[in-house]
């Protein structure tokens, strides 16, 4: 079967090196690191700790040289796709350029080297970085107070919900439930449960928006909050957001905004101005900190003034130009993680914000421009279930290709052969067979054109040669992997006894 297509323009074939697991390269006596000589008398561990506290050598622990480590991980790296290679159109994930200067400054001696327990008078530089970032994020979101402690978006959600809970408790009743639209990220309901609330799912209307009449019926005196993602996961702004806030506030409930899609709003509008009470940001999305194959992230939470007494400890305070960490906050919800959060991620986000300044608006405009350009280019080739204007992402469905037995996952896998990472599949849940496409502002017109061209070519293949699409990818080191077998009989680690298998 022909795997090549004259229409594949972005990618060509390339040799990739075979490589086994590091454990399979190990041989007794090899090493990749040497310590300076000990300048104090050596100590015998058995004598110092007692035999019961000392371990034996670790069976199967790797023994390899430095060059083998370099080659091993360099070879593995070439098996990955990356933003640095091209467009990464994962909807909702906001895979934008990760500026290299941010990596440089995060590693400076005097920043990377600092211990989180060192006294505040020798940590003024770190604290000022945190303070400057706080001010920037508050200005961008239009909110009043902030905590930078949460480690990622999901922990930000939990923190935000605990703040709402604490305020409601202080009013005498924490209430019982949190409303979540059916288009929401999976972390929303999972966070609600940890905060001790029940989830009540609410249906979107025919336009994929929150139905305000429907909402009015659901909001009662047991409702603590509504968690809304705005723009929603179909990339559309909730036009009636102010009315939604009003419905909640009239019953003493609060509006929580999942800021995962802030990339569409920064510099254009501010959640604090349209009625949001509590929100989080994902700094590894809008603020460009690298995803790194799954983290680290950071999930700051911004609130209106009434929530300020409940923020997690410690709270950064400033007095006469000096900074300190205030631990004495009797109404605080407590800590959500050790120390002050993912400082190294926070400082990268500040570096990003400083690079743009007020010009962050241009990034937002370009992100929305790219999404609409791609939407226009693919209309007529793919089904568009919701017709409202798109912001930073466009969501299509595989309804047309389904007729030929080709689904969104098949199209996504074929996109790999065309030199692109797949878009997001199977999400949001309100679009069956979704193709969720978010180009971000980092893509040139040329890259967008290549993407549109690739998608159109695949749409044509789905009609004329569906088998080619259904068996994709054809150009990768491995084909589609057996996920059912992986889950049925999980092999989750390498073991010396079962290492008979040859390196591939």
């Amino acid at each position: 079967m022909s795997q090549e297509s004259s229409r594949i323009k972005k990618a060509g074939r390339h040799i990739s090196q075979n490589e086994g697991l590091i454990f399979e390269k190990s041989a007794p006596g090899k090493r990749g690191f040497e310590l300076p000589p000990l300048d104090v008398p050596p100590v015998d561990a058995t004598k110092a700790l007692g035999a019961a506290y000392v371990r034996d050598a670790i069976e199967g622990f790797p023994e390899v040289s430095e060059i083998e480590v370099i080659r091993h991980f360099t070879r593995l790296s070439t098996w990955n796709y990356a933003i640095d290679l091209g467009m990464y159109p994962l909807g909702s994930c906001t895979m934008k350029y990760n500026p290299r200067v941010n990596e440089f400054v995060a590693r400076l001696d005097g920043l990377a080297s600092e211990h989180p327990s060192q006294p505040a008078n020798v940590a003024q530089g770190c604290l000022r970085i945190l303070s400057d970032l706080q001010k920037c994020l508050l200005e961008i979101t239009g909110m009043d107070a902030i905590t930078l402690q949460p480690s990622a978006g999901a922990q930000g959600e939990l923190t935000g919900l605990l703040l709402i809970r604490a305020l409601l408790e202080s009013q005498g009743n924490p209430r019982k439930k949190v409303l979540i639209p059916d288009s929401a990220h999976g972390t929303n309901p999972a966070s609600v449960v940890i905060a001790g609330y029940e989830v009540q799912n609410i249906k979107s209307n025919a336009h994929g928006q929150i139905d305000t009449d429907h909402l009015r019926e659901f909001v009662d005196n047991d409702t603590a909050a509504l968690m809304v993602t705005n723009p929603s996961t179909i990339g559309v702004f909730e036009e009636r957001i102010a009315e939604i806030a009003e419905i909640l506030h009239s019953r003493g409930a609060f509006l929580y905004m999942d800021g995962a899609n802030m990339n569409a709003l920064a510099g254009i509008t501010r959640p604090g101005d349209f009625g949001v009470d509590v929100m989080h940001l994902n700094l590894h999305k809008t603020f460009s900190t690298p995803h790194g194959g799954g983290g680290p992230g950071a999930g700051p939470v911004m609130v209106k003034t009434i929530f300020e007494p409940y923020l997690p400890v410690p709270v950064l305070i400033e007095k006469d130009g000096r900074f300190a960490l205030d631990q004495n906050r009797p109404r605080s919800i407590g800590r959500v993680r050790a120390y002050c959060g993912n400082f190294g991620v926070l400082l990268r986000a500040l570096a990003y914000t400083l690079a743009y300044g007020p010009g962050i608006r241009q990034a937002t405009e370009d992100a929305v421009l790219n999404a609409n350009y791609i939407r226009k280019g693919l209309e007529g080739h793919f089904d568009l279930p919701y017709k409202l204007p798109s912001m930073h992402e466009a969501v299509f469905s595989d309804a047309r290709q389904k007729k030929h037995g080709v689904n969104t996952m098949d199209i996504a896998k074929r996109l790999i052969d065309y030199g692109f990472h797949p878009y997001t599949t199977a999400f949001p849940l309100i679009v069956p067979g979704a193709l969720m496409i978010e180009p971000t502002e980092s893509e040139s017109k040329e890259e967008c054109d290549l993407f549109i061209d690739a998608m159109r070519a695949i749409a044509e293949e789905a009609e004329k040669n569906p088998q080619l699409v259904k068996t994709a990818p054809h150009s990768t080191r491995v084909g589609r992997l057996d996920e059912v077998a992986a889950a049925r009989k999980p092999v989750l680690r390498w073991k010396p006894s079962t290492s008979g298998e040859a390196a591939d």
Partner: protein
Amino acid sequence: MRYLPKSDSERKEMLRAIGANSIEDLFSTIPERFRLKHPLHLPGPLSEAEIIQYFQARAEENARGYTSFLGAGVYQHLRSVVPDAIIQRGEFLTSYTPYQAEISQGTLAAIFEFQTLMCQLTGQEVANASMYDGSTALTEAVLMAERLTDRRHVFIARTVHPEYRQVLQTYAKHLGLELSEVGFTASGQLDVAALDPRALAGAAALVVQSPNFLGVLENLPALAEIAHGSGALLVTGIAEAVSLGTVRPPAEADIVAMEGQSLGVAPSYGGPYVGVIATREKNVRQMPGRLAGQTTDAQGRRGFVLTLATREQHIRREKATSNICTNEALFALAATIHLCLLGKQGLREVAEQNLAKARFAQAELEKIPGVKRAFSGPTFNEFTLEFPRSVKLINAELLREKIIGPLPLGQSYPDQTKRGLVCVTETMPRTEIERLAAAIRRILEKPV
């Protein structure tokens, strides 16, 4: 703007293709009254050189040139330049969570190796792809114990890192978990006599840390026997992972929650680090976080995928084992590379150097009149000393000599104001240890 790859004429051309008159048209769904009329009040825009200048100026305002004896959950260790060079390759740095396995085999294979190394280190059977940090890993381990036992009462040692305990309290509060703290003896180890056997009989878990926050190793086999005798699980936290180069791993524990910062990650003022949860194979379906597993493609070629996702929030939503989504993959990779470089011998040597340096420092400091060891239990690279004066006052004077002294235990244990936790790793030169001892001697000789 240098990060944006478009000329103004390209922008206009794209708008024309869309059929929009201006960029404003694309934002028409945002009600007019909420659209910003003025530019945001933000500093910048800054050039690359100005950004570097700003952060260099901040670095000068910290503790550069100071010698620090702080540990207490975050440790300064030697790191090869190799891991940092590799994790800055764009293919690792700028890739997403490996949901699309065919073009993420590099990340997936590395996670599989990380999981294996964590099992080898901790003496457990399965480990996940990482958690946020040690504090949240410990909290998630306790929630996992609750699910496994269907019990709500948890006993936790007061010698578990105070901030880890605070995080657990925040999570436990709204989940109906009851936490009881257990004190310590003159050895610095858990006070077994203070454990109420009747209460323990209904408990989900006994939670300890080893080395604990006082620097003392716990007798884990004995604690496991006590916990298991009551049907409770033993959850063991580890804040100093380098100890596992020489200290017996917590093989008897049912769940291990570890902070992996020591394994090649910079202190970076508190994060990002890398949390780990490791456990028995039979518990895997109650484990939080991502897992990579080995499988094959249609042609029988070995490959790796994210697996057992039905535990996770993106599939199970409100019924998930945890809300965790993003973890700390890049630093799990750094730890993997660091451990591969150290290897079997290197890991042991680093641990033994820590032991030797700490013992030397302890002996030097104990020579000072009035300074003595606070606890008799076995220690690794940290130990608690008792001073004749408040540790805070001693530290204020040490700071003038550019020494960041022992962590004052009084911050977390109000009855221990004259006790301080000293950490000495392989990075500390003998001359600096001697300088610390001489400085403390001088300070204590001065009349109050």
